[in-house]
């Protein structure tokens, strides 16, 4: 293998992007799920104003489930199409992981933008601290993308992979969602800014830990 890390990561990322642009299934399904979930939440509220803490909780649960719907596809589709072995021959495991995780981050960023706009429009919630809102969302997208990419890789060869990705991914991400809610509720005007910043710091720490552990664990199971 003479290619550099960057070239390999870039190649995997471009492959994912081209595949997505050809089918648009991941972006469409997670985007549509976000829209449906927000409308369902607004309907369930029966026109009542949702308080910031409840709103932040609903937002993060929606984001988590839309990630669980679209992101594990990155590895599952390789196994279904029978291209997993070819990928094993052509690229280093860390490069494959980061290529797919970067693409998932992009997908997650697009989904979170759609979700944020829909959420603010339909629930009439006001964003008091825009910077904290953007920071928590950015950290959330990174951590979600890395964690769910690993979950997708773990379940790719399992017998009931589509259900299993959620079963193993959601418990793994629930503490992280709690931190996300802690940061978002402050940005929506509930609680002290200090506690919001601490929660936001927790999000980035979680993303960092996942980013350090996930590619190495993926590399350990890669050739199997």
């Amino acid at each position, binding site marked *: 293998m003479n290619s550099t890390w960057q070239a390999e990561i870039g190649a995997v990322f471009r492959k994912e992007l081209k595949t997505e642009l050809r089918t648009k299934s991941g972006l469409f399904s997670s985007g549509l799920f976000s829209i449906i979930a927000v409308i369902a939440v607004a309907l369930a509220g029966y026109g009542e104003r949702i308080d910031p803490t409840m709103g932040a909780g609903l937002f993060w649960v929606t984001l988590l489930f839309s990630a669980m719907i679209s992101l594990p596809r990155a590895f599952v589709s390789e196994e279904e199409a029978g291209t997993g072995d070819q990928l094993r021959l052509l690229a280093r495991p860390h490069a494959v992981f980061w290529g797919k995780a970067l693409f998932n981050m992009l997908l997650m960023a697009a989904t979170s933008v759609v979700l944020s706009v829909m959420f603010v429009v339909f629930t009439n919630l006001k964003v008091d601290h825009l910077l904290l809102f953007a920071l928590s969302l950015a950290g959330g997208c990174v951590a979600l993308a890395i964690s769910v990419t690993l979950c997708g890789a773990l379940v790719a060869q399992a017998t009931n992979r589509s259900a299993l990705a959620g079963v193993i991914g959601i418990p793994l991400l629930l503490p992280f969602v709690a931190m996300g809610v802690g940061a978002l509720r402050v940005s929506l005007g509930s609680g002290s800014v200090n506690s919001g910043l601490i929660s936001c710091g927790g999000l980035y720490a979680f993303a960092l830990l996942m980013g350090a552990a996930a590619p190495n664990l993926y590399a350990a199971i890669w050739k*199997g």
Partner: protein
Amino acid sequence: MRWILFILILGATFATFWVPDAASFQHPELARIIFFHLPCAISTPLFLFFGSYLGLRYLRSKDKQWEIRSVAANEIGYVLALLTMATGMLFSKTQWGAWWQWDPRQTSFLLVLLLYAAYFALRMSFTDEKKRADVCAAYSCISAIPAFFLIFIFPRIPYIVQISFHPSNTIITGGFDRAYSIILSTLFVLILVLCSWIYKLSVRAGLLDLRVSELYGNMETDGSGPAPTGVVRPISLSDKS
């Protein structure tokens, strides 16, 4: 040895009824479940993180014995977590009036339970043993990150400490009298010894199972006889006799 352990646990259990009530609880006479709840709660992370460490050793060496050890530790950790949850719910009912309070500590332990339930769900979803061992070891390692947060960091966040009913530092701050502390410590050590003994038995059974499957594999591939029928012969028989 096991009889001595059995007698000691029995003696310590009787002693929990003899010791004077701990005055720091709302209903001191009903708080004795703490003698079993606390040792289980402290032992749970020991076994779960030990399981993650052994999973990591398996991923580094790919030696199946580490996977057997990791599964055994996770199984015992999970049983201890279930016992912690059950005894905690009893404590919640007697002291706080409801089986479930959404107390942050109860909730974080519930999430740990879900995390490791997912580990066993993952184990059941692979037919290929090698793949199952690899994937489950990796999941055991990655789940140590949120488990560490849920067990050690989340319950100690100042805001969580304020809103939690859970008595957090009763032992550290000397909330129990001497007799209470001695019996609690004794039970903790005995439960730890009991679990370690079960762990050793489980590992031994797993290693024997591995040995048998290796031998069974050899018998199947050895020789050029007819296709295996599912019947394992203890000795090799010649087809030409």
